[in-house]
């Protein structure tokens, strides 16, 4: 214990005590986190991006140039997660590094756990929430707005675009900003964050609503198709069934498009040849 105190005092004498992070630093990290994927590669993933986003915090908490170099070196190594959910890791790592600078016991193990295990979990959660559920949901809502408000053309298009951007970005920006704030406040306890635990529940709700809205959208599109004749409806349903089956069974959007279009052409040709 005494040794530790002496060691701390020595540090204080040799290097001035590091500053603690300021709100402005967190804002800078938040803004830099938007560019975290700029140097994404298959091998290193978000490595340099993570270091780039963390740099204002590293500059603030490091004791000297060597310490800053050491921190930056460690945080520019392999790292992979979802870009939006990385905010939690950024905040949490900053807190742990700050504690480490103030000589807390064994912080590097915690940092390693956060950067490998939690990042993996958050990556998977983020991919599901943002790409699998939220983006389709926002798109379907926007398309429904176009159809329902068609009397107000061109305003229906503007409203639908604003709607799309709002639905997606409210949650996107919330997780980016709250991730940094909460991660920095909670440190390792970020794992128990309610905003993370809420994601699976949110996914389920979004999927249910999306399914309902797909039903609504398909009826609105059928009405558009029916304007011509019943033949349009047959082609619409045939193409949609083909694409559904191929995507559901084979998970191949490209194949769904090609075969769906081919089926439509065959049906069209058959009707055309029979003199419809």
């Amino acid at each position, binding site marked *: 214990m005494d040794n530790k105190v002496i060691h701390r005092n020595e540090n204080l004498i040799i290097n001035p005590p590091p500053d603690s992070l300021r709100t402005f630093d967190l804002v800078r990290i938040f803004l830099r986190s938007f*560019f975290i*994927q*700029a*140097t*994404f*590669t298959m*091998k*290193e*993933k978000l490595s*340099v*991006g993570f*270091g*780039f986003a963390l*740099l204002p915090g590293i500059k603030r908490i490091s004791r000297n140039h060597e310490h*800053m*170099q050491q921190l*930056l*070196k460690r945080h*520019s190594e392999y790292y992979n997660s979802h870009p939006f959910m990385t905010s939690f890791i950024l905040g949490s790592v900053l807190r742990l590094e700050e504690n480490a600078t103030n000589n807390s016991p064994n912080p590097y193990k915690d940092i390693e756990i956060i950067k490998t295990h939690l990042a993996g979990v958050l990556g998977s959660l983020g*991919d599901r929430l943002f*790409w*699998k559920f939220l983006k*389709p949901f926002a*798109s*379907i809502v*926007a398309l429904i707005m*176009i159809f329902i408000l068609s009397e107000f053309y*061109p305003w229906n298009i503007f409203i639908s*675009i604003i709607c799309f*951007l709002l639905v997606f*970005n409210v949650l*996107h920006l919330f997780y980016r900003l709250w991730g940094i704030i909460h991660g920095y406040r909670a440190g390792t306890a970020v794992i128990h964050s309610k905003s993370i635990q809420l994601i699976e529940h949110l996914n389920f709700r979004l999927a249910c*609503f999306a*399914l*309902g809205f*797909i*039903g*609504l*959208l398909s*009826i*609105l599109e059928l*009405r558009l*198709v029916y304007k*011509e004749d019943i*033949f*349009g409806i047959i*082609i*619409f349903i045939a*193409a*949609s*069934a083909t*694409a*559904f089956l191929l*995507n559901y069974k084979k998970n191949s*959007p490209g194949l769904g*498009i090609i075969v*769906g*279009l081919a089926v439509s*052409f065959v049906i*069209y040709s058959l009707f055309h040849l029979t003199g419809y």
Partner: protein
Amino acid sequence: MEGYITIAVLGALVALDTTVAGQFMVSQPLISATLAGYLFGDMESGMYIGAIMQLMWLKLIPAGGSIFLNGNLGTLAAISVLELSVNEFKYSIESLRFTVIVYGIVTSYIFGYFTMSQRFINQFLIRIAHNAVYKNRIFRFQLAHILGVITTGIAGMLISVIFALAGKWLLLRLPPVYFTSSESFFQYGLYAFLGIGIGTVLSMHWARKAWYYPVIGVGAGCVVMLLS
């Protein structure tokens, strides 16, 4: 010339927003195509092509290590070709829309290689960044990362303009028999694209136990139809 500048700016915006900067979803087909249509004075075509491409490419996930098709840039190529050639085109607007959508699908596959080439360039930038850290050159480290943004923006600009020009050149040289022999199919082809979009989105969320959600949606759609 103004048209090409617009395409270049939109190309940079779409390429950056897809993964590199922000991901605010401005690059999504529905938004980028509508915006392009608005800037060219034909918002309806932009919205139409954007809506179809949005549904068809919803399953693409720009996640982690996946090499995904670039449906966003593909859509921009499609709408650019339409807007650049609409004044010189002699056939129906349906045939033009159908053809540019097919072109957009093909270019989406080609632009998948754009993502790969970007990651190839990034390997060099990462090497520069790592060397900068070892030499304690913080500015060079940051510059290497920012270069990743700049190169993506420039590449997006260039390939958008190149593929818009190439598409226009190809479209205006298609044999007239292509348009005249299947004139009536193009309208139905567009309906087929809409159907493919709905089928694709439904397959993303479909679960046997949740069959009643789409049914409720269909019921709500019928009510909306009756009321209007």
